[in-house]
């Protein structure tokens, strides 16, 4: 055996998977098509956002790397949705994409136990029965063996980019796709499908007229995504906002037939939540304008990202419509917008551990599973890495529940329901989001990261200290009288903030702001959090009814035909998961509960 573990791909999923495996102590190899493109931000030069910021902090709490990378490459920081409530706020940062990628590669290089190798994986090697993975074959005809494999191919597996009439076998503009692997997986029986995504043009900073745009600054104080330290010090750059106009829309409408999306060249389904500008114009004809965020791609570069107008129209059309936009009249287009279509594997063929149901020891993460987004990729890469390590140790996989992490929601959604379009994390996908706040990820996950051998002892101690401080603040508030009430009760009133109390209680000032903020939320939303707890208790009842992966559904009397088929396909590991499968009816669940109960009682 050459390696304990191989990770295929050096994107955001591959980075987390390879670091997790090597940090836990396994001899790991990362194979990538190009060492120079490790950790690239292929699309938007930003990390975080609503619910995505939570994913980053979850990765961090478990012992992953993404938060460190963005903390040391950010050039703007914002907290989104401050006014819409604590449960849905999240941090977002603009990144210097070159710094981000360089830090990623340096981190991998500095990691003991981790080897890096440049080649393209074109096939998997299975055992004689075809049931277990034993290694990979590369383009240059190396066969490398391993005990576990994490597959993170991003948009490269049989990738093809489209710009109007032009198309090429690329995973990113002018970067070769990984040809052969998708076909090999299809022939091995994996359910492979096509998805599509896109990216806007990059334009030259010095050719733009910012005086015609709206300025968008970040927060004055940058806060780290990571729980490992309290502050960061980074340079800050502004973003700008401009809008499309009727003229822009006219140009797009007049040329819509030249889009490969409308011409039928692209078969893969694109994300509805992140439509191309031609989609927006067609679907919302009444809108007079669409917003564009002009974002810097880094400190040392002139490239600016035009967030909001991704497109697959031909370059001459892009040229025209970009120049119709205020502030972009003389924009020099440095890279065109393009669409990319790629192979993904139906994630319903995975267990919640992200291990394949078809081939043992094969774990799959990131865009290969039909997701979209760096953060979605990172959290899957981390979980796949952790669970591959658990498998090597012969221990039970770590599966996060829907009520403890967005990561849990994401993976459960993927393996239970699959996806019809590139899956993006959304706040509204989570049922218990009052419990999934970004500021308390450490409280939910650090211990779990420690238990699987990834999180450091010192971070566990940091968490302990934080909890103690929060307790102390609560005690101080409970003791302090304010008229009839204690300060703690006063804080429950909607109009009172902890800052108001701080004015009267100088002893609070010695605590860090995040501590005070969390206490404030805990106190203010106690009633709702308790109510959600009760919902969670109901939810957990069904989750705790375990189903064996090898359950014989044909032997269960009374299941509907469709329900039986779906259960056999998904092989849920709990009644709760079964209840979320499309096509499984309530009556099927009743039968299942009854069956399990009888089995339990009679030892069948």
């Amino acid at each position, binding site marked *: 055996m050459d390696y304990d573990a191989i990770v295929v791909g050096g994107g955001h999923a591959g980075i987390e998977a390879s670091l997790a495996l090597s940090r836990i102590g396994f001899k790991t190899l990362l194979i990538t098509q190009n060492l120079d493109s490790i950790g690239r931000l292929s699309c938007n030069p930003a990390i975080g*956002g*609503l*619910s995505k910021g939570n994913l980053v902090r979850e990765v961090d709490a478990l012992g992953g790397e993404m938060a460190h990378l963005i903390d040391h490459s950010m050039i703007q920081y914002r907290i*989104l*949705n401050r*006014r*819409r*409530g*604590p*449960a*849905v706020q999240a941090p*977002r940062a603009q990144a210097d994409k070159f710094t981000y990628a360089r830090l990623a590669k340096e981190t991998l290089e500095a990691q003991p136990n981790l080897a890096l190798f440049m080649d393209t994986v074109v096939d998997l090697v299975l055992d004689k029965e075809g049931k277990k993975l034993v290694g990979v074959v590369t383009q240059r005809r190396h066969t490398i063996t391993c005990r576990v494999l994490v597959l993170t191919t991003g948009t490269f597996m049989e990738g093809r980019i489209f710009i109007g009439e032009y198309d090429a076998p690329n995973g990113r503009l002018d970067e070769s796709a990984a040809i052969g692997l998708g076909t090999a997986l299809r022939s091995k029986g994996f359910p492979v499908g096509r998805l599509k995504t896109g990216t806007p043009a990059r334009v030259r900073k010095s050719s733009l007229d910012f005086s015609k745009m709206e300025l*968008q600054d970040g927060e004055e104080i940058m806060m780290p995504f990571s729980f490992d330290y309290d502050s960061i010090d980074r340079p800050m750059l502004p973003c700008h*906002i401009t809008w499309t106009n009727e003229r822009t829309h006219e140009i797009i409408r007049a040329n819509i037939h030249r889009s490969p999306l409308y011409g039928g060249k692209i078969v893969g389904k694109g*994300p*509805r*939540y*992140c*439509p191309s500008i031609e989609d*927006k114009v067609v679907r919302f004809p009444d809108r007079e304008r*669409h*917003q564009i*965020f002009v974002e810097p791609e880094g400190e040392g570069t002139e490239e600016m990202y035009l*967030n*909001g107008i991704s497109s697959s129209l031909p370059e001459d059309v892009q040229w025209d419509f970009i120049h119709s936009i205020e502030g972009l009249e003389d924009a020099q287009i440095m890279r065109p917008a393009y669409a990319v279509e790629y192979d993904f594997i139906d994630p319903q063929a995975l267990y919640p551990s992200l291990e394949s149901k078809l081939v043992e020891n094969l774990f799959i993460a990131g865009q290969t599973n039909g997701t979209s987004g760096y953060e979605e990729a990172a959290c899957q890469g981390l979980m796949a890495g952790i669970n591959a390590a658990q498998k090597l140790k012969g221990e039970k996989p770590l599966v996060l529940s829907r009520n403890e992490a967005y990561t849990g929601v994401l993976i459960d959604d993927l393996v239970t*329901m699959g996806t019809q379009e590139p899956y993006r994390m*959304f*706040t*509204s*996908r989570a*049922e218990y*989001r*009052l419990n999934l706040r970004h500021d308390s990820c450490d409280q939910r996950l650090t211990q779990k990261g420690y238990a699987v051998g990834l999180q450091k002892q010192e971070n566990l101690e940091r968490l302990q200290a934080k909890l103690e401080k929060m307790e102390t603040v609560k005690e101080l508030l409970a003791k302090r009288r304010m008229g009839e009430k204690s300060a703690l009760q006063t804080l429950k009133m*909607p109009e009172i903030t902890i800052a108001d109390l701080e004015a009267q209680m100088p002893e609070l000032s010695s605590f860090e702001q995040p501590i005070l903020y969390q206490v404030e939320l805990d106190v203010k*939303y106690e009633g*709702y959090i308790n109510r*959600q707890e009760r919902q969670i208790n109901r939810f957990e*009842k*069904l989750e*705790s*009814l*375990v*189903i*064996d992966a090898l*359950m014989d559904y044909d032997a269960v009397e*009374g299941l*509907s035909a469709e329900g039986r088929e779906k259960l056999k396909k998904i092989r849920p590991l709990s009644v709760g998961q079964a209840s*979320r499968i499309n096509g499984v*009816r*309530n*009556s099927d669940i*009743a039968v299942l*509960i*009854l069956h*399990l*109960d009888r*089995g*339990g*009682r009679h030892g*069948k």
Partner: protein
Amino acid sequence: MQASAPSGILAGMTRYVTDDIIYALATAWAQSALAVIRISGEGCLKALSPCFSRPKALVEAQNATTVHGYIRTEAGENIDEVVASVWTDGHGYTLEESVELSCHGSLSVIKEILGLLGRLGMRSAEGGEFTFRAFLHGRLDLTQAEAVQELVSSQSKTARALALGRLEGSLKNQIADFKQRLLTITASVEVQLDYAEDELDEFVFPREQLETLRKDIAVLADTYQVGRLYREGARIVLAGSTNAGKSSLFNLLLKQERSIVSPVKGTTRDYIEADLSIEGIPIRLYDTAGLREGSDAIESEGIRRTERLMGQADLVIYLVDSTDVSHIPSEDERTIVVYNKSDLVRPPKGRLAISAQTGEGVTTLLSAITERLTGGSHASGDDLVVIESERQSRLLTDAGNALERASALVTLDIPLDIIAVELSEALQNLGELTGEVTPSDILETIFSGFCVGK
């Protein structure tokens, strides 16, 4: 298969195993001419046979035949003469071996037979359990039995029994309409939580839509009382002092209404009851013994019974003798005070007055009764949608309450993430009526209605 220790859900249904014999009274627990006791489960004929006068005939009976005989105690004493309808395995309601005993409808007989079955090692069925078995054995179309999960997990016996009440077309449409409207409101909030403020247009909470929806839901929820009233009827007790004229009013009401069913003689001297219908509502009317300090033992026993009857009544009509107003009871939502003998003395102004002698004021009294029982809403039109089960009513009420809380939070300017909790609770309640609402439904609504995404 391994299952964990019985959780709440399992605890509720651990008795829902199908390998034992269950029994239950299938007719109402009331004095009547005939009663039916249903027994189901493999081996039930054999189990029953030692206490049946013709054991061999019972055990060997063909499917869908009847066997006449006597049910006897273990000591061999006859309890009742019965007809046993036999269903063999694979037939009948539950598709299990089963037997239905038609016996006399005296409460003491029913009690004794049920007690005997228990001693024979059979188990008293949980509400809905026969249906559950029928469903499990494929007797019911699964689409009809979608409510079984609810049935399994619902706590109360009544809720379980009612869980299978299917939604009728018009009602289903109405609730689907509520759900769609709520989904639209929820999506407009959720999109605010899914995208950053600078990516979306200015948000105004759809307050008016929420309020209209809340009211519409409340109206439908309230029809439950009315629906139940027309289906199950009401008990009305005539009360008042001995000389207030209760018996005259009793007879008058029976005469007034043509649809007299059956005046039944009470078994004792304490009360007489009769069935009639007032404006379509089935009524059981009780004429009670006068409320007077009884001097003899029998009479005070009668008064105790009267008080008990009044306690169980849906409505008490307290008759006051206008010529002797020494004691006037207070009126409440279950009590109407009526002044009788209006032909002799003019009762206080604004009070309900009748003359049981001349019939004056009785029409007014009848409308007052209907008004009081229906809470003012008249379920007469064919187009009126009425809630039929307690479960439906509870879920609608809960949904309405959640929306009311949401509305209050909007007033207080509480952040959207908290308001969303209430909206999702309301959606869940409506979802339990017509099928679940999943986060993907909400996202679908968002994607189809909003221009989102950078």
